[in-house]
């Protein structure tokens, strides 16, 4: 259900729906070595000295869904309220904070870092349709309302990372236990029989609303390995990193408020299992010259865990909402590069491709992402030896998608467009 409507800022940095982790912009990858290593690769927190990172991410999303009447068995007399073009546009700001310290012990380095960030989030508030027929009170919420009207998903994480490095070999490893605070609030149109009927056979209003507000707390962890290949082994500077991020399945528990047809609205305790994908990331930083570094990265997110979402009443497991997901694993690849144009200014750029997890048949205006490409540019300015400021602009364009095989109830066939832009600003002290 519920998960259903997470869209707006549901961005994908790499191949994970809802992924908002863009700490340190274009330098955010498994070979990141700043304070946000506690997320990108805890092995890199083992760096002597203090570190601090402050991240601000501004994001903008604009998406449309054209619910085609003929593809969704919408009768002509209901087309004005159950078909047509829906639009969502939104802005958001996401902060993150991390700090740490490292020490040298002979040939070994050790470090610790703590931080708070949002790895996953989605806020979507679809535009209203003020011109909708007044005799259909639900139509004001737009033709996409059967999948989502507005949703807010937040997964906030607090983490404490520990890392160690053997300096002569360049090998390091780290582990970051993570406390996740998840919350979801979403509302959608709903009928008892999962149709988009406005009235029943006797002409009584049938459309209703389902609001689900919930939260959960869970623990996960991120484990990382890193190898800064010693010059003795390779003259070209090369760092390799790999991380395994284990995200717990959330059991979002809260209250469902339901108004069916003309029935008296009621509320009840309910829960929604929300499995989240574990993620494998791998990346490298290859110094092609003293001024140019390439940063390829790869990500695999196990979204196949999200098969079918069913929100149920806590009292007796009565299904309140069933949403077909049938996600597949998601993959993403990036190639980014850095060019140090002066001693203090470095230009950043890159691009990538995501293979999204959502099949056409379960695509809907809420939680769904298909394939997408990304292009980005940025800069990093060293204010002094210890302080640097960086920024990046990322354009994330999803391929337009035409869906005619929807298995959602009611069906969500139609044409989808989606693009997102992210502007990151990072202050780094090390």
């Amino acid at each position, binding site marked *: 259900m519920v998960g259903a409507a997470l869209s*707006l*800022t549901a961005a994908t940095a790499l191949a994970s729906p809802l992924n908002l982790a863009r700490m340190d912009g274009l330098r955010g990858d498994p070979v990141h070595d700043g304070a946000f290593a506690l997320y990108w690769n805890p092995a890199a927190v083992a760096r002597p000295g203090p570190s601090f990172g402050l991240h601000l991410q*501004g994001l903008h999303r604009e998406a449309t869904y054209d619910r085609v009447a003929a593809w969704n068995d919408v009768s002509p007399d209901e087309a004005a309220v159950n078909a047509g073009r829906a639009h969502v546009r*939104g*802005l*958001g*700001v*996401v*902060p993150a904070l991390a700090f740490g310290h490292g020490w040298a012990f002979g040939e070994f380095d050790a470090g610790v870092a703590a931080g708070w960030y*949002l790895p996953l*989030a989605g*806020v979507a*508030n679809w535009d209203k349709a003020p011109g909708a027929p007044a005799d259909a*009170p*639900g139509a*004001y*919420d737009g033709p996409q309302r059967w999948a989502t*009207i*507005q*949703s*807010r998903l*937040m997964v*906030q994480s607090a983490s404490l990372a520990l890392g160690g490095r053997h300096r002569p070999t360049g090998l390091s490893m780290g582990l970051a236990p993570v*406390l996740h*605070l998840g*919350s979801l*609030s*979403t*509302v959608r149109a709903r009928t*008892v029989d999962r149709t988009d009927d406005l009235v*029943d056979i*006797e002409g*009584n*209003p049938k459309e209703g*609303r389902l*609001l689900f*507000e919930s*939260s959960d*707390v869970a623990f996960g962890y991120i484990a990382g390995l890193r190898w800064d290949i010693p010059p003795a082994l390779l003259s070209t500077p090369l760092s390799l990193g790999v991380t395994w991020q284990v995200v717990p399945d959330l059991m979002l528990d809260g209250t469902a*408020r*339901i*108004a*069916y*047809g*003309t*029935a*008296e*609205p*009621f*509320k*009840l305790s309910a829960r929604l299992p929300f499995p989240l994908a574990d993620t494998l990331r791998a990346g490298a930083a290859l110094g092609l010259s003293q001024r140019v570094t390439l940063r390829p990265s790869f990500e695999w997110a196990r979204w196949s865990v999200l098969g079918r979402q069913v929100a149920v*009443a806590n*009292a*007796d497991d*009565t299904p*309140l909402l069933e949403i077909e997901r049938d996600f597949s694993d998601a993959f993403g690849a990036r190639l980014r590069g850095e060019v140090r144009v002066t001693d203090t200014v470095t230009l950043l750029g890159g691009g990538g491709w995501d293979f999204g997890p959502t099949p056409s048949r379960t695509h809907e205006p809420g939680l769904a992402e298909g394939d997408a490409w990304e292009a980005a540019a940025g800069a990093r300015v060293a204010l002094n030896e210890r302080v640097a400021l960086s920024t990046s602009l990322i354009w994330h364009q999803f391929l337009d998608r035409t869906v005619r095989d929807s298995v959602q109830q009611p069906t969500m066939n139609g044409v989808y467009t989606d693009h997102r832009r992210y502007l990151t600003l990072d202050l780094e002290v090390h």
Partner: protein
Amino acid sequence: MTRSALPLLLALTTALACGRTPRDDYDDYLSRADRQALDTGPAADGASPPAWRDVTGSWLLQAKLALGNSIWLRVRMCAERAAPTQVDWDRCDPALGPGPLMVRMWLDRQSMATDAPIVETRTEVDAQGRFLLVADPLRLPKEIIGFELVARVEMQATTAPGGAWCGDATGEVTSPPGIPLDGSTFAALRDPDQTLTREDTAWDCRGLGVDSPDAAPTADAAPPSDAGPTTDAGPTRPESPDLGTVTSARADLTGHYVLTANLPIGLPLQLWLSLVSAYGEAPDAPGTLNGAVHAITAAPGDAALVTFTTSLSPDGRFEVWLPGATLQSTLGPVEADILLAGATLDADHFCGQAAGQVVRPLPLMLDGTLFGAQRFVPGQPAPPPAEALTACPSSP
């Protein structure tokens, strides 16, 4: 603590996202649809068409019986769980749509938590919010309406806007027989904490501000009556019962009597009669009988319910016509047009037959009602109906 911190953190992280929440959209829809959320109180409108509403939970029900008596019941309805009739009464699951519910009823003075229900039944709420409650048997102890009642009661209910339900009741009284239920009405108000009082309740749909599906009587309308029309000229005196088979003898009836009658519905009726009789000196001279009728529970000095003057035949027969009399009975106040035809058995006993009709609290023809009377001392216990003279010895 972590969960309580979520809203603050969310506010920080979504500062620019938007000010509206999903809850706002939900509430706005209810407003547009002229609906009101359950947790913000009941709706106040009364003109919505019949529709399904969740009626699970606890209710205080008032039923106005055709007799005129009101009874109050506590009703708890809960959705079935995995299997039919399987209910967790403590948790009382809500209904998610039309379907079966389990129902329990208690007297309003009882505790729903500790007392056994007087009725447990099952009902099915349809898509229009209608359901039939069958209480079979419904046993009411004597102190509720003045006599013990056992009945099969069928309450045809419809849910009303604002979280209430109401309707008309029919059925059959098995004990005592003959009491009609048709015309009874009821209404129930949600009372989750058992805080409502009898004064808070209504007894029909109009009392809730909605129309009964079956045109229930209005709150202030008279109960239905089969007594036939009355005119401004007053009730018509019925034909005199035939006491030809009863031997009557002239005797001085002056004194106090307890009159016991068995009404056609099987209910005993006892009255206290104070009589003064006088005959002419001639053996065949007629006489005069003056009387006052008291409730059997009245004490000396209490005002009479009605007084009368009639004539005595030379052999001690008399007729007393009491149109529009208001008597106090075990049913409560009784309005009746009563003709008593009596025969004197001896100076301590008389008997006879009644005619006429009871108008309130229930329409009841009195033809064929027998009675007997025997002397007693006011202020002392009257003989119980089972031990009292209730008919003439020679009566068929």
